[in-house]
């Protein structure tokens, strides 16, 4: 199992895995609220209350001034943040890629990535090449949420296809060779040029 530290590398490596094993690979997203013991929940709530009371010079005012020292600005102390775990798993080769986050700001970006990966699942490697070239064309990295807007870009892509369609084919042949040699984890994105971080650990900790 590989736990990746950035969403960008998770998405890149997942797209490589999916393009190598499009039939068997699946993506699972697990949204979970951590377990909070009832006693703990009560205890945290009460300490918050006493703190607020002791530091408030005027107890008549119900709402403590936000930003005052020692007074928590958010009442989220009792409820820890939820965790979102993304897993890309290929049961045939046993590769697991994982990414964990607890930030709400990342959900949109990750979902955009999952939409792209869905496209790769549906249409195979061609889709990945197309998306990679679109990204290059637009001059932004691999997590381009704008990359899905299509429209005029597709026309440009068609022109591009006319030019280097041959390269794409060569890339595919190489992919096939790599696959047959059984080295799925370390497939380099030839042709499309995703630029992964070299070889992934295979079957390390499970």
């Amino acid at each position, binding site marked *: 199992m590989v736990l990746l530290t950035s969403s960008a590398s998770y998405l890149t490596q997942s797209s490589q895995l999916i393009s190598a094993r499009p039939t068997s690979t699946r993506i699972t997203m697990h949204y979970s609220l951590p377990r909070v013991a009832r006693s703990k929940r009560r205890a945290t709530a009460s300490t918050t209350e006493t703190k607020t009371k002791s530091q408030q010079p005027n107890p008549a005012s119900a709402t403590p001034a936000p930003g005052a020292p020692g007074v928590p600005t958010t009442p989220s102390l009792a409820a820890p943040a939820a965790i979102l775990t993304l897993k890309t798993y290929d049961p045939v080769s046993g590769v697991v890629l994982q990414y964990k986050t607890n930030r709400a700001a990342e959900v949109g970006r990750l979902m955009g990535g999952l939409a792209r990966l*869905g496209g790769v*699942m549906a249409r195979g490697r061609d889709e990945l090449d197309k998306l990679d070239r679109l990204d290059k064309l637009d001059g932004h990295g691999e997590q381009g949420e704008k990359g*899905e807007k299509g429209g005029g870009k597709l026309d440009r892509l068609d022109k591009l296809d006319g030019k280097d369609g041959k390269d794409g084919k060569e890339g595919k042949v190489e992919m096939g060779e790599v696959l047959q040699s059984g080295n799925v984890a370390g497939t380099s994105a030839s042709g499309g040029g995703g630029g992964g971080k070299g070889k992934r650990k295979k079957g390390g900790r499970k």
Partner: protein
Amino acid sequence: MAEHHLSAEEFLARLRQLFASTSYENHSRSVFLTQKRLTPHTTAPTADSLSDLNPTQPFPILIRATNGKSREKKGEKIKLSTIVQDSELDNFFTRYAELCKTGMSNLKKRDRGAQKAKLKAKKEKERKAKEAASG
């Protein structure tokens, strides 16, 4: 086991309910979402093992959602699934992403509190300095 795939609309509506039902208080604290390529069961293994890499026509995507209840709590288990055709993929994912963003409400929000406090302290300092200068 026979599965009943829902339409995209119904799936999204039920998923919204599933997200809404999660809370710290009760016993449903999880939502699992899965996506994979949907291949027909009848496909016999072909000589060309790499035929799935370059499909002649796009495959549909299977999207599943559960609340992750185990076999012991079979009665509480919620299983939803839908099949998204390739042509509807973009449209579906825009709505799906929107739903997930609102549904995953207990993730950590961007903390602007600290920034605000800093700004306030700065303003206060300036005000005091002004007062000192005038008084």
